């Protein structure tokens, strides 16, 4: 008989990368149409200290709770709050230190991100000054050791991407320029930078998780990556390998790993899979890691430019979670029959059907009602980013649906719906990074609230737009329930 799986620890980090906003999918496409937009974007970027002080970012790394964020009047980006770049769950990394990690993530020869010794020394110094990442500094080899040349501008044929930080050029990010890399659009500079950003931020989140748990990397048994990138070449685009790439960078020498894909619901799917592995006795310590999405940087930049506002979607977001056996303290993931919410293929796409399957059915399987859950976490996108873009408050919309389903199920009076939503809901606080905002940013806050005895049960509901793959018109939903450890 195996012990019930728990979420033992977690980490949440942001990397503030304003100079990479131009390489987000939307900005990149618009710059190709009109190169003058690059300058407009550059003028609208926030400095690091503003991104640090931004209340939703402080909430993401754990210095504010979602309830505390909700008391801060909007607009949040004008608030002169005191912000620290480290938080209870992780940190907001500056761009130069991020470049140091990005350089370290580059394992190709010739390198994807070559630079001269002067640039390398700056990055090495930046990593060395970082209390958690200092061990990475000595691993940045000098150019003569790794065969690099310089930061000279490459030939126009390479389409390499200029890499600047705080006005200084650190070099160019290349594609795979070996014989096997040419003519493969999947191995061009943009796709490889996208994959490298996922790996780098995944390693950042994993480093923080190991630090918070005070656990040696060799203790990790298995890694599951849930990022949105599609690693691989022309014969297997999306083939994967990200989990082991991240684990390798962090020294998890005893771990194997795999990647799970399910669009925005991939973190929830990965957590459920990790929990099942632990419960089955396959592995003792499984880490779920989600790196950030380069493609989604600046996704809503046009709206910010139109309103003469700073571009707020300027951070890569990442998380890592440690799933292990019951320690008598950490919250339990309910894996009883029917407790994990799924949306069957035959359920169709109507909201009522989807929510019935991944909200009501799991609760019924546990003989619970909607009102037995203390807090729900659905899509937790920062409304300030979404509303300027005309998409509305996505978080609030999902709570309306949860409330409506509770009323439909006759578990809540319609007249009580608004007050109930205030009690069980929260304000969104995660940047528009696709999979990262989908329910899981609340896990850290839920763990703390359970530890303090404020809540007993939280439900995480994650949705996936499967129809974006053009192979189906379906969408998906995955849910799970986290409970305060009864032994605690």
């Amino acid at each position: 008989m195996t012990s019930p799986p728990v979420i033992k620890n977690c980490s949440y980090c942001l990397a503030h990368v304003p100079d990479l906003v131009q390489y987000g999918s939307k900005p990149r496409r618009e710059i190709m149409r009109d190169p003058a937009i690059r300058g407009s974007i550059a003028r609208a970027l926030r400095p690091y200290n503003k991104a640090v002080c931004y209340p939703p970012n402080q909430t993401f790394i754990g210095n504010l709770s979602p309830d505390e964020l909700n008391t801060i009047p909007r607009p949040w980006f004008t608030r002169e709050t005191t912000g620290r770049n480290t938080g209870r769950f992780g940190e907001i990394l500056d761009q130069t230190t991020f470049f140091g990690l990005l350089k370290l993530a580059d394992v190709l020869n010739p390198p994807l991100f070559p630079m001269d010794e002067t640039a390398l020394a700056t990055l090495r110094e930046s990593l060395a000054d970082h209390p958690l990442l200092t061990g990475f500094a000595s691993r940045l080899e000098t150019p003569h050791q790794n065969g690099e040349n310089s930061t000279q501008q490459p030939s126009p044929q390479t389409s390499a991407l200029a890499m600047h930080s705080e006005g200084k050029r650190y070099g160019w990010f290349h594609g795979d320029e070996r014989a096997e890399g040419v003519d493969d659009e999947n191995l061009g500079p943009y796709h490889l930078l996208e994959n490298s950003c996922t790996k780098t931020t995944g390693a950042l989140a994993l480093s923080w998780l190991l630090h918070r748990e005070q656990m040696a990397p060799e203790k990790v048994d298995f890694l599951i990556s849930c990022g949105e990138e599609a690693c691989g070449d022309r014969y297997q685009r999306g083939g994967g390998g990200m989990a082991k790439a991240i684990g390798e960078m962090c020294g998890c020498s005893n771990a194997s790993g795999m990647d799970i894909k399910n669009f925005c619901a991939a973190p929830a799917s990965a957590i459920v899979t990790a929990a099942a592995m632990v419960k089955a006795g396959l592995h003792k310590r499984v880490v779920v890691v989600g790196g950030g999405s380069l493609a989604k940087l600046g996704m809503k930049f046009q709206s910010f430019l139109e309103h003469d506002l700073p571009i707020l979607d300027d951070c890569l977001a990442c998380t890592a979670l440690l799933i292990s056996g019951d320690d008598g303290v950490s919250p339990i993931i309910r894996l009883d029959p029917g407790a994990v919410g799924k949306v069957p293929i035959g359920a169709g796409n109507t909201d009522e059907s989807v929510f019935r399957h991944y909200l009501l059915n799991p609760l019924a399987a546990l003989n619970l009602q909607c009102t037995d859950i203390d807090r729900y976490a659905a899509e937790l996108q920062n409304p300030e980013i979404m509303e300027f873009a005309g998409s509305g408050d996505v978080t609030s919309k999902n709570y309306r649906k949860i409330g409506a389903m509770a009323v439909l199920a006759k578990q809540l009076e319609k007249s009580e719906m608004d007050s109930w939503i205030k009690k069980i809901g929260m304000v969104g606080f995660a940047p528009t990074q696709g999979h990262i905002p989908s329910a899981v940013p609340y896990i850290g806050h839920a763990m703390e609230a359970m530890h303090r005895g404020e809540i007993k049960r939280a439900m995480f509901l994650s949705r996936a737009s499967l129809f974006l793959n053009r192979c189906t018109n379906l969408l998906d939903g995955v849910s799970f329930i986290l409970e305060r450890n009864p032994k605690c």
Partner: protein
Amino acid sequence: MLHMKKAIVFGERDDISGTTVSTCLKAAGVEIVYEDTACFV
């Protein structure tokens, strides 16, 4: 009022999906000639 009409439906995943709108319209006798649901996150 809508019986025998044709409709083009645009929905949003986190608001009202195209499928939900179409289901309602079909019940009122509308022919759906195009339906799409967008994801803005």
